[in-house]
């Protein structure tokens, strides 16, 4: 376990993206991810991807910050592509309604251009969402995030639960690490040397102190919050919320246009979520 991993390794650079309010970034993130999730048109996906990489450059995020994430996603997307093929080699034929065989593979599997096109589209579709997530996570101040959630209509109590999660995640990580080290110092074996059943039981011996410590904390924190009058009113204000500037309206308009464009292409050009080059 990497104890040094920081949650939202937010860096305070001064770029146009950092200067946007958290609310703007949250709405743009939701709009743009919706656009890419909705469309199965590779042209749209490429356009959005180029846009997202440009924004990534603009927000001065270094490759070293996001390398681990890219590797994770790559493993996920490649595994997804392979098993999709084995589970459903005819998915492309079903979607595009035509069949252009390339080769017959072993065991009755046929490789078709339709399947290749479908899987390539899907590959880029899943990959193009990532820059938005990264930009959002790395340029948004965590404490501004809760206020943004509240302002898009999430109940402030739920938003506050999110704020607490973000606040206490690093603490939990540290505590988990400490308990695990303490237990190992007393001879608890957690590595591959132990049998599976033992490892399972031993990990429970770390879990139990962590959870019961947290239950005690719940009492302390909720008493402190009650004493300060939390949840007495129906609404609350946030210390970190920012006023909208002109750049916020521009960013919102651009994201909305991209989303509307995506839906427009699907409805009026492709007559469906898929772009069919085979007709």
């Amino acid at each position, binding site marked *: *376990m990497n104890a040094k991993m920081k*949650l939202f390794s937010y860096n305070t650079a001064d770029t146009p993206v950092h200067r946007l309010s958290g609310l703007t970034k949250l709405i743009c993130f939701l709009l743009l*991810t919706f656009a890419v*999730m909705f469309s*199965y048109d590779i042209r749209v996906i490429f356009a959005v991807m180029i846009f997202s990489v440009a924004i990534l450059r603009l927000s001065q995020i270094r490759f070293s910050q*996001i390398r681990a*994430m890219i590797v*994770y*996603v790559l493993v*996920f997307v490649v*595994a*997804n592509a*392979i*098993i*999709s093929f084995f*589970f*459903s080699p005819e*998915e492309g034929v079903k979607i595009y309604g035509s069949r252009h065989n390339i080769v017959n593979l072993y065991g009755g599997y046929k490789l078709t251009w339709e399947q290749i096109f479908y899987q390539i589209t899907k590959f880029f579709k899943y990959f193009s*969402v*990532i*820059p*938005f*997530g*990264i930009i959002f*996570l790395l340029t948004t101040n965590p404490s501004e995030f809760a206020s943004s959630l509240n302002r898009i209509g999430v109940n402030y*109590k*739920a938003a*506050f*639960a*999110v*704020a*607490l*999660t*973000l*606040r*206490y*995640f690093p*603490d*939990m*990580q540290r505590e*988990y690490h400490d308990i695990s080290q303490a237990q190992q110092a007393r001879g608890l074996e957690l590595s591959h040397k132990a049998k599976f059943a033992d490892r399972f039981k031993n*990990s*429970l011996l770390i*879990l*139990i102190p*962590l*959870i*019961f410590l*947290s*239950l005690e*904390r*719940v*009492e302390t*924190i*909720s008493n402190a*919050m*009650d004493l300060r009058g*939390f*949840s007495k009113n129906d609404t609350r204000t946030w210390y970190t919320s920012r006023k909208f500037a002109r750049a916020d309206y521009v960013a919102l308009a651009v994201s909305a246009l991209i989303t509307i464009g995506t839906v427009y292409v699907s409805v009026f050009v492709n007559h469906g*979520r898929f772009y069919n080059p085979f007709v």
Partner: protein
Amino acid sequence: MKDHFKVNTRTIVATGLGAAIFTLLFMYVKVPSPVPETSFQTAYGLSAFFATLFGPIAGALIAFIGHALSDALQYGSPWWSWVIASGVSGFIFGFAYKRTKVEEGEFKTRDIVTFNVIQAIGNVVAWVVVAPVLDILIYQEPVNLVFTQGITAAIMNTISAGVIGTLLLIAYAATRAKKGSLSKG
């Protein structure tokens, strides 16, 4: 039934801290399974435990926030269909709230059965119904693939919630003062 959905400060704080532990377990304490993209998640044992102590709203939010956050940290963006399914599972786990005597320091055979029936229903609804259907609606994934993944996830999360959840509840019951445990000297 009415106080199942009551939310006070304690529920909010438990949700926040529970989601933080859920994220931690979801990211680090899991065992890979033979079916791709699924693994034995200890986190569902935790969400079942918290849902039994704090109710459906806390359960749903813990799993939803925790899953979304760990997805975002690992993959850059949450896989919404499964995040929503996690929330649904946590919500249904919450119906074990006040149906067992765990707060009175007792978690015996009857309570264990009640808890496990509820958590099994929650897992089946979330992973065999909600997750695959949303996968098809949102992501248009192949039908037989998502149902295979869903059934595997249902089985493994039921085991996880059953074993870990039950053990945690027994441990918790032991820390509570038993009803009528004081006797006149």
